[in-house]
């Protein structure tokens, strides 16, 4: 893999509009890019023999509502080059109004369930995904729980179930309290 400065030069000439910067914190390189060209960057990192990041370890997202940044959401991709044992992180910044970016499923099949999880928990849509629906929360769950404006205790979803009562002899045995 190229060293950090050369990598910055190469990426700046390939993605002049969307490339933001490369940061290096505790030996972990992070490429910040805007969401429109994130898929092209991933394709370059996978197929270009200078980089050869053949393994996608993780896709996740961070909601920067309280922390600030170029946009509200950042979709984070962790890539690994298994031949030379190198890791790199790609952060695709996604705007708040219509959070959407192209899906990485054509490159790696592991993106399938991980992007569904990001959609479920953050509400970021992935265009071109084969089957984008909720994976962790129930199908009729209304909100996206991991956003910063959703409270930890939820909005009443956990107390919304029928109470089973049962009669033993002449006594009704009931549930204790509904929280």
């Amino acid at each position, binding site marked *: 893999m190229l060293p950090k400065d050369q990598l910055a030069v190469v990426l700046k000439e390939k993605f002049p509009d969307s490339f933001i910067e490369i940061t290096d914190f505790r030996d972990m390189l992070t490429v910040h890019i805007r969401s429109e060209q994130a898929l092209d960057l991933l394709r370059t990192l996978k197929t270009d023999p200078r980089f050869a990041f053949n393994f996608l370890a993780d896709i996740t997202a961070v909601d920067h509502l309280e922390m600030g940044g170029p946009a509200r959401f950042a979709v984070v991709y962790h890539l690994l080059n298994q031949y030379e044992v190198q890791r790199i992180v790609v952060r695709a910044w996604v705007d708040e109004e219509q959070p959407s970016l192209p899906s990485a499923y054509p490159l790696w099949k592991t993106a399938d369930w991980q992007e569904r999880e990001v959609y479920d928990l953050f509400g970021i849509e992935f265009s071109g995904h084969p089957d984008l629906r909720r994976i962790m929360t129930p199908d009729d769950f209304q909100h996206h729980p991991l956003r910063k404006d959703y409270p930890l205790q939820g*909005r009443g979803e956990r107390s919304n*179930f029928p109470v*089973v009562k049962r009669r033993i002899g002449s006594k009704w045995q009931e549930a204790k309290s509904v929280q």
Partner: protein
Amino acid sequence: MGVERSGGVEWLTTTVDAFANWARKNSLWPMPFGTACCGIEFMAALASRHDLARFGAEAIRFSPRQSDLLVVAGRIPIKMMPVLTRIYQQMPEPKWVIAMGACASSGGVFDTYSVIQGIDNFLPVDVYIPGCPPRPEAFLDGVIKVQKLIKRDSLGHYKPPVEETAA
């Protein structure tokens, strides 16, 4: 049984009751609804060191129609709660429910949007076993408490069982 309705033959029913309770408590067939870490300690209670078979509860039946003790071992999230309610309703009487562990009893460590804060909010529970996870010995203690509950039971309680779900 129609015997107790005729009145005046309580000595017969108490003997029959005692016999029935003795038979029921020594042959509990658990239905393990193990979701998380407590399920592993439940499995450890079934293994050879802490042997649950000594209490007659060796026949683990994963079908609710064939079991009489529902052991809810682990945290119950909102997606799993309708499943648990349905399993409970499918079990025939008489049945007992053990809430094993802190998460089934009260939500445990997880005071979040997705975990039911104790199954006793929606199901009637007979015995609670605290611990995170409870040791297998604690689970065996819980089974013994269920056996004590059964000893005080009476056949007259189940005539006919009425179960309703409030909306």
